[in-house]
């Protein structure tokens, strides 16, 4: 016997201290956390820095990122990109990239799905 059972779930998700970061993301603004001990800048923000410090402050990045590696296919287009002013890289979704672009700018995303989406900058 096989039963088809449908389960619908509607979550009310809260994000605590990360709410600020996600809210800015929907506006196309890149907020990062800067460690006040070693000046490391993380985006997406890391609450505890690699140096062990949890004392940090929010800073605003330009939102421009250089693409280091990208992938595309049936599952969409994604990249590892390094945002200006950031110490590490991020996984980003690519929108409207044709294949030759090497940089992008953070673009606004939906309030229901705050995402790190880049649109191309031709340099």
């Amino acid at each position: 016997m096989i039963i088809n059972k449908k389960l619908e779930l509607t979550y009310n998700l809260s994000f605590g201290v990360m709410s600020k970061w996600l809210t800015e993301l929907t506006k196309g603004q890149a907020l990062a956390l800067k460690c006040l001990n070693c000046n490391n800048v993380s985006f997406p923000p890391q609450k505890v820095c690699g140096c062990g410090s949890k004392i940090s402050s929010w800073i605003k990045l330009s939102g421009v990122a250089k693409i280091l590696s990208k992938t595309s296919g049936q599952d969409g287009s994604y990249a590892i990109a390094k945002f200006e002013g950031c110490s590490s890289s991020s996984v980003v979704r690519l929108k409207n990239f044709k294949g030759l672009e090497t940089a992008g700018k953070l673009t606004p995303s939906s309030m229901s799905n705050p995402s790190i989406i880049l649109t191309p900058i031709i340099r």
Partner: protein
Amino acid sequence: MVFVTGYHLTEFNRRKDGSSYRDWISETFEASLEMSCMDRKDIDTLIVSSESDFFTLQLNPSTVIADDLGLYNVEALRVEGGGASGQLAVHQGIKSILSNTSENVAVIGFDPSASNLPSETVKKLYSYSFDAWTDGMNEVTATSLYALSIQIFMDETGLDENDLANLTINNRNNACLNPGAHLKLKHTQEEIINSPVISSPYRRLHCSPLSDGAASIILSNKISSKRKTAPSIIGIGSANDKVNLGARDEIGEFTSKKLAMKKACQMAQVLPSEIGFAEVYDAYAGAQFQAINALGLSNNFLKDFRDGVFNLDGKLPINISGGLMGQGAPVGATGVGQTATCAMVLEGNYHDKLQFSLIPKFALADTHGGVGTNAAVSILKSNV
């Protein structure tokens, strides 16, 4: 000392016979228990592993499984660590024995990854197994994240598309000799290179399948006269890396695996070069190369691969079961199944066409969750 006194894997495939994961668990447990020459009353601890309640629609699975298996008044718990769930469950069993809190532990891994939900739904759920607030919101798939990692590894090492195709062929060829394997397929390079691009450089045939299945082992602190040749687990190690690929120091490397292997080798007092064969976590073709490199199984993995060192008849056979790519991947069962496979080979009980006539002394089972995010490895020793 910890002995693997019983071991078994069900078939890994897409079940179409109306059977349930609870049937597969019963099948694998009863076979392991019989092999261990013990009675169910001898089992004092039940550790189960599965990746997600979404697949089974059963929260707190260890309790219903204990009931199904007739295990009462035992310690029953579930271990979860993404793709590494099964191997971490094995580790938990070993720790229970080494801490003298258990004598005989049943470790059972399972997942109905193929038949209970549509594959598109499973794919979507998997995207929440990375950071749900970043990667999850971006709707990035596991394949895309693995693809970003392997691209960097390929740039750094010279690994190319032909190597990905050849490894796929090797693993699926091995699977053809494994009666319990999911994808018993003979591929050509052309077929692989012309299969659809899921996330470059990964094509459909470079990916492991979603499978149904279960696997089990019985771990014991001593062996009876009937189980004198039961293999032992002499080293375990586990470590993590940052979930966010971009935040890692080495995006193309499985750094967590290096550390896990170092810990396991230290515990076992064994060098990576002493490992005689290995079952490694090949969720994608490239991941097997990343694993071999990180585990230190070769000083020049690419040359060794191209020279056939890791083939079934090579000096260091890897994934003789077919690996995840050929044998299949019911996630929670994978790590337990790899350990069971190592135990079978080390006791001379593996499938006829895959069993080595000269039994190696040491074997390695290597598993990870995420894109090498949490790694767990075990080193087994033959007592034949």
